[in-house]
């Protein structure tokens, strides 16, 4: 593509044709503030509402100021981003926005991370001279995973772009017009009654406190303070490579040991690892894969493909959007739920306490896990297998609130037995990881031979949809991988419409990048390189583990010997498997 040259604040810059003025400015480190605009290159999301006008600049020869995020860069343009006229315009825009925004920063969940607050701060807005009509007010919508407080909506419509274009869920739309305009669900229904998958990606991109997670930190504090309760915690793989960011570490810094110490200091009685349950998942799901592969090879063609079922948002998606494929996901529960189930049976027996005395807390990179834990089928007599779920951000907040600096803490190890894990488990945190872990075990069990090479580079990466063949000693197992629900939709439609590439096993994660990009992780504010760094950290942890295949985890072997019997056996079925139901929602 041909390059064009333009001048921004006296600096000459050349950019490819089709770039915006904003992109050109960024290239020469001229900072132009933005609010509605968001460009997530790696997930191909561009939000170009051009509705807020905070990014205006002056272009020589044009009478009006132009929004840089939506103005194409042209050859020979001379642009000024910092004139008094520009600054004045931006300030007016801000004051307008603030005049219809609740002044609740002291109690707002987004305080400190809010882009609107950041702008007000950097512009030194000290009073708001515009007083319009009364502020628009909307009903607050609370689901198990997220809270929508639309009084704080600035109508950037990033959430709508995320939900409809990237995730293709279609739960959100702008409704009404003028002063009444707001982003909401069909018929303005509560989100819990819609096709919303609880993926939380709308929360991950909302610049303000309009969309936030349903915070459970105080409930955890209460449980910890209750002397009658035994409080057990599990931490998901993706948390350890991201939580450090909340304490000033570079993305991709692994802080497992410090995190374990922090949890112990907070008063958790047993600090365990979801990775243990991930290894367990591999044994159950891997066994199911091999059973279904056996049937397939015996001529029962509909036994495959099999779909992974670790991602609850993904399960919600298939239940409401692909009724015709409801029979193909693995029946294995997710690692979070396997953990809860085993903790409140096997481990409660070891401790010799009733399940009601135990509180299981999960630390998850995810908001959908909050919803998953609340599903009725994951409880015994109304007592949930997993009681409370905190996001990575919420845990960071809890640690800070307790006067600890994560990075000053000594490292320590998880407790046993449910803290033992392998490299196969930790890669559950990234796109491609679950299926690679499954293949490591399935290969060895199926062929009876040792894997020639543990790393399956062909399954890794960031492409939205990837298909690769894995040689199972003669049989070519075709694997499909998708991350982000829009990509999952494309792959599922392909499978539904004849499966031309003969895919046998599919891994789906609802969030871009997989759990490392989960909606409960530290905000990436549009910087895709953060996800890549978290991903490399995950593979680094895997490489450094002494054991890298799930079926070699001794604590898992012991669990089967002492308690469960064999994978996909009777007790496994009762405790570790589930079923899915078609849900007709709008």
């Amino acid at each position, binding site marked *: 593509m041909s390059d064009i040259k333009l001048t921004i604040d006296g600096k000459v810059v050349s950019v490819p044709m089709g770039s915006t003025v904003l992109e050109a400015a960024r290239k020469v480190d001229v900072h132009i503030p933005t609010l509605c605009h968001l460009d997530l290159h790696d997930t191909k999301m561009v939000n170009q509402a051009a509705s807020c006008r905070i990014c205006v600049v002056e272009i020589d020869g044009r009478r009006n100021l132009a929004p840089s995020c939506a103005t194409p860069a042209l050859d020979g343009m001379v642009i000024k981003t910092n004139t008094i006229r520009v600054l004045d315009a931006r300030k007016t825009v801000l004051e307008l926005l603030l005049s219809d925004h609740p002044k609740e920063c002291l109690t707002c969940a987004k305080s400190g991370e809010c882009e609107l607050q950041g702008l007000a701060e950097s512009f030194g807005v000290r009073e708001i001279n515009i007083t319009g009509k009364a502020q628009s007010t909307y009903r607050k919508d609370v689901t198990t995973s997220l809270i929508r407080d639309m009084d704080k909506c600035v109508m950037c419509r990033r959430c709508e772009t995320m939900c*409809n274009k990237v995730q293709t869920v279609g739960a959100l*739309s702008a*409704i009404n017009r003028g002063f009444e305009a707001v982003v909401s669900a*069909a018929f303005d229904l509560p989100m819990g009654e819609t096709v919303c998958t609880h993926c939380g990606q709308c929360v991950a991109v909302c610049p303000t406190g309009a969309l936030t997670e349903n915070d459970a930190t105080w409930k955890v504090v209460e449980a910890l303070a209750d002397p009658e309760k035994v409080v057990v915690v599990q931490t998901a793989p993706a948390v350890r490579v991201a939580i450090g960011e909340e304490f000033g570490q570079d993305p991709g810094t692994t802080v497992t040991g410090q995190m374990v110490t922090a949890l112990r200091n907070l008063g958790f009685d047993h600090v365990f690892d979801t990775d243990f349950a991930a290894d367990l998942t591999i044994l159950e799901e891997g066994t199911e894969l091999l059973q279904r592969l056996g049937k397939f090879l015996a001529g029962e063609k509909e036994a495959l493909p099999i779909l992974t079922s670790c991602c609850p948002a993904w399960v919600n998606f298939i239940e409401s959007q692909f009724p015709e494929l409801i029979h193909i996901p693995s029946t294995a529960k997710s690692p979070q739920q396997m953990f809860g189930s085993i903790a409140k049976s096997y481990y409660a027996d070891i401790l010799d306490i009733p399940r009601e005395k135990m509180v299981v807390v999960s630390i998850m990179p995810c908001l959908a896990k909050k919803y998953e834990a609340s599903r009725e089928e994951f409880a015994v007599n109304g007592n949930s297998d997993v009681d409370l779920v905190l996001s990575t951000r919420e845990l960071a907040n809890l640690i800070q609130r307790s006067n600890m600096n994560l990075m000053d803490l000594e490292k320590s190890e998880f407790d046993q037995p449910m803290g033992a894990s392998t490299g196969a488990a930790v890669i559950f945190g990234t796109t491609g990881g679950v299926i690679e872990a499954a293949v490591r075990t399935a290969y060895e069990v199926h062929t009876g031979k040792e894997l020639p090479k543990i790393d399956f580079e062909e399954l890794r990466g960031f492409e939205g949809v990837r298909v690769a063949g894995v040689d199972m000693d003669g049989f070519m197992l075709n694997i499909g991988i998708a991350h982000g629900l829009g990509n999952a939709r494309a792959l599922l439609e392909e499978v539904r419409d004849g499966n031309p590439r003969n895919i046998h096993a599919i891994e789906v994660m609802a969030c871009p990048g997989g759990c490392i990009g989960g909606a409960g992780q530290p905000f990436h504010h549009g910087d895709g390189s953060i996800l890549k760094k978290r991903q490399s950290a995950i593979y680094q942890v895997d490489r450094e583990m002494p054991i890298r295949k799930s079926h070699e985890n001794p604590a898992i072997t012991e669990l089967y010997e002492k308690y469960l019997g064999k994978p996909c056996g009777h007790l496994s079925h009762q405790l570790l498997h589930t079923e899915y139901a078609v849900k007709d929602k709008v």
Partner: protein
Amino acid sequence: MSVKTDLTETKFNELEAYMETIPVKKGELIRVLHKAQGIFGYLPEEVQKYVAKKMNVSTAKVFGVVSFYSYFTMKPKGEHDIAICLGTACYVRGAEKILDAIKRETGIEVGETSADGKFSITGLRCVGACGLAPVVMVNDKVYGRLTADMIKGIIDNYR
């Protein structure tokens, strides 16, 4: 299908037949909704869901469009729909007073339907009969050059 008598299968079939005449569905949502409102008289949730499914867009998106344009309504019109022009010419010549009189007589607001299902009021933009301003239409009959004191008599005709 729905139990409501006014959401008959015949009407859905008519709508489906219409949609089949549109070769490329993309970008035609408003046209289809227009037609649907013509057939059903209003756009209840069932109809919006149906259109969403057929047009392969989300129900949220359909509702977004329906709630954006004041022309679309989710409530059934009354047996007699009183449509009042609120365009500039009519407005200048006293449409507001006429509207007040209509509201007084029927006890309902614009966009509402009376409890007995008899009357509804619809607000319109210029209907192209400015010479007759202010203008009201009841069902398909046009009443022009109105004054507020004529309203009671007109409405009584339909009681």
